[in-house]
C-alpha cells in the first residue's frame, strides 16, 4: 500500500457505509442492519466455535475512530462489556446517548483518537449488528433465537481477529476493556500473544467466580420465567419478556455498584413522598432508581442476547484452557500489561485482578497493576476516574514510545 496515513478497508466491497446515528432506532432493526460499519464473512471463512459448531455466515458491526498510520502500528481495539456495543465514543443509535466510554476514548482523551486508530466491534452474541440471537439465521431466514450455538469469550475474540485481519492489521498496539471487555483483553493476549503489543484489562478476572455465575443465573431465570419469553421465540409472537429482562437488569445493576455508593446516593430516602405508603410501590429512591434502570434497559437490549452474553462470561476460565495453571497461559509473552482494579468492586474484586497479575509475574511478563480507590464499585471503569485516566494515559504513552509511535 502506498504511503497513506488514512485507513482504507482491505476489501471495500464488503464494507457497508455507516449510517448517521439517528435517535430512536429500535434494537431489533440494529441487529440485522446496524448504524455502523459492517463486515460480512461467508461460508469460505466460517467462524469455528468452542462448542464444536461452525457459523457459516458471520456479520460484524464495528466503529472506528482516528486514522490508521502508514505502518499500521497505532491500532487500539476496545472491547465492550456485557451490555455495551461498538459505539464506544459516538452517539448510540438506539438511546441517542453519548458512547459508553466517551470519557476514555476521543480526541485528547487517554485513548487519544488523535494518536491512535481505535476499533470497537459488537461481540458475537450481541444485539447491535454482530451476529447474535436477534440476527436473522441465513439458513432458515428466521431469527436465530436459541438456535444460535452458545458463544464463548474465545469465540468473540476469534471473530474480532477476523475483523482485524480484514482491516489489514497484523499487530494491535493495544487491546483494552473492562469486565467482559477485560476478559476479551486477556483472551486476546492468550490466543494471539504476538498480535497484542500491550493490553489493558480493567476490573476483570481470568475466570468467572461462583458468586458471579450465581447472579447471572438469577438474571437468566428471571427472563425465562417471564411468560412472554415463549421458550426464546418471543419475536415470533410480537412480544418480548420485558419484565423478566428488567428484573435481570435490576439484580445485575446492584452488583455494579457498592453499598457505600448506594448509601451516598440514595440512603433510605423516600421517592416523592414524606412517609411510607404501607404498600409495594417504589417508596424508596433506590427502588425507583432500579425500576428505571430495568425499564430503560429493555428498550435497548435483546433478552436472548442477555442469556448468551452472561453464559459467555460464566464459561470463561483461562487457567482451565491451560492445564489448570494460569501462569502457563502467559508463558513467553512479550505483551506489556496494565491491570486496573477498584477498591469497592465486589463483582471483580482486586483479588481476582491480582490473580492475573500474579500469574503474569510468574510468567515473567511485563506488568503494571494499579488499584484505584473509589466507592463507585464495578461501574467505576465506565466513569470519570482521574486516577484511572492518568494511569492509562501514562501506560499508553510509554508503550507508544517502545512501539515507536510518535
Amino acid at each position, binding site marked *: 500500500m502506498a504511503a497513506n496515513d488514512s485507513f482504507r478497508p482491505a476489501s471495500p466491497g464488503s464494507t457497508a457505509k455507516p449510517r448517521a446515528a439517528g435517535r430512536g432506532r429500535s434494537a431489533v432493526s440494529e441487529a440485522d442492519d446496524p448504524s455502523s460499519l459492517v463486515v460480512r464473512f461467508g461460508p469460505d471463512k466460517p467462524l469455528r466455535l468452542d462448542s464444536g459448531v461452525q457459523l457459516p455466515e458471520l456479520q460484524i458491526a464495528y466503529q472506528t475512530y482516528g486514522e490508521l498510520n502508514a505502518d499500521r502500528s497505532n491500532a487500539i481495539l476496545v472491547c465492550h462489556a456485557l451490555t455495551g456495543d461498538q459505539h464506544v465514543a459516538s452517539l448510540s443509535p438506539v438511546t441517542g446517548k453519548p458512547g459508553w466510554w466517551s470519557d476514555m476514548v476521543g480526541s485528547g482523551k487517554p485513548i487519544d483518537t488523535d494518536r491512535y486508530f481505535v476499533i470497537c466491534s459488537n461481540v458475537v452474541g450481541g444485539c447491535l449488528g454482530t451476529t447474535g440471537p436477534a440476527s436473522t439465521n441465513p439458513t432458515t431466514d428466521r431469527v436465530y433465537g436459541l438456535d444460535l450455538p452458545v458463544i464463548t469469550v474465545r469465540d468473540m475474540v476469534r471473530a474480532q481477529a477476523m475483523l482485524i485481519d480484514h482491516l489489514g492489521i497484523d499487530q494491535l498496539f493495544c487491546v483494552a476493556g473492562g469486565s467482559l471487555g477485560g476478559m476479551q483483553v486477556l483472551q486476546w493476549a492468550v490466543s494471539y500473544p504476538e498480535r497484542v503489543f500491550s493490553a489493558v484489562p480493567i476490573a476483570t478476572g481470568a475466570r468467572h467466580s461462583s458468586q458471579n455465575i450465581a447472579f447471572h443465573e438469577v438474571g437468566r431465570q428471571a427472563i425465562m420465567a417471564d411468560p412472554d419469553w415463549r421458550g426464546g421465540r418471543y419475536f415470533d409472537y410480537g412480544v418480548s419478556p420485558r419484565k423478566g429482562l428488567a428484573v435481570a437488569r435490576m439484580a445485575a445493576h446492584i452488583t455494579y455498584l457498592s453499598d457505600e455508593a448506594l448509601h451516598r446516593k440514595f440512603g433510605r430516602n423516600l421517592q416523592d413522598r414524606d412517609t411510607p405508603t404501607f404498600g409495594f410501590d417504589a417508596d424508596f429512591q433506590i427502588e425507583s432508581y432500579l425500576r428505571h434502570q430495568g425499564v430503560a434497559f429493555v428498550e435497548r437490549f435483546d433478552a436472548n442476547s442477555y442469556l448468551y452474553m452472561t453464559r459467555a462470561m460464566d464459561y470463561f476460565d483461562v487457567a482451565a484452557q491451560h492445564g489448570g495453571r494460569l501462569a502457563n497461559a502467559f508463558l513467553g509473552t512479550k505483551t506489556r500489561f496494565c491491570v486496573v482494579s477498584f477498591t469497592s468492586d465486589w463483582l471483580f474484586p482486586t483479588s481476582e485482578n491480582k490473580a492475573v497479575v500474579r500469574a503474569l*509475574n510468574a510468567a515473567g511478563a511485563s506488568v503494571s497493576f494499579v488499584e484505584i480507590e473509589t466507592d463507585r464499585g464495578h461501574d467505576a471503569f465506565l466513569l470519570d476516574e482521574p486516577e484511572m485516566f492518568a494511569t492509562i494515559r501514562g501506560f499508553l504513552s510509554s508503550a507508544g514510545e517502545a512501539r515507536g509511535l510518535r
Partner: protein
Amino acid sequence: MNAHAISVAPTTNRVDLLAISALVTPGSRVLDIGCGDGQLLKLLEATRNVDGRGIEISQKGVNECVARGLSVVQGDADSDLIDYPDDGFDFVILSQTLQATYHPREVVEQMLRIGRKVIVSFPNFGNWRVRAALGFRGRMPVTKDLPYSWYDTPNIHFCTIRDFVGLCDDVGATVEKSFVLRRGGETSLPIRALRFWNLFGQQAVFLLRR
C-alpha cells in the same frame, strides 16, 4: 572493592540511589522492591539501560510509577515475592525497606531465590547517634535518616550492620560488596572495619549472592 566513585548522571541527588545504581550491570533485569515513586528505576533505566520492574505498597507511588511509564505492581514485599519465579531477575533491590518488613529474613531469602544478585540498603541502627539517644537520653532515636517517632514509624525491624552480616550468614548469602554511605554523601567506603562502621556508619549497602 574500592570506594565507589559516583559518576552516573545526576538525575537524582540521592546518594544511596546513585551508589546502588553503580552496582547494577548495564542491560540487566532488575526488580526494585518498595520502589516508591520510581526514582531508582528511572535512574537505572536512564543510566544502566535496565529492564526494570517494581513492587510498591502505596497506591500513590504505584500510580506515579505507571504514569511515568514504569512496570510497577501494587504489592507487599512480605506476601508477594513468592509469586515470582526462581532466577527471574539479575538484580533484586531492596532500598531502605528491609526495616519496614514483617519478616526480613524471609524477604531476603525470597530475594536470593528470585535474583542472581541482591542489593539491600538500610539505616544502621548501631550508629552512635542512635546509641546515644537511647543510652544517654533514654529516648527512642529520631534522626535525619530515621525521622519518625516510635508510635508512628513504619520501621518495625531495625538492625545494625553487624546484625545484617549475621543474617547473611544465617541464610547462607555471600557478601560480594558492602559499604557505608558517608554523612554528606559525596563518597561511599567499603566495610572493612566492621566494628568501626557499625558505630559510625549511617546507611549501609550490601551486594549479595547465593
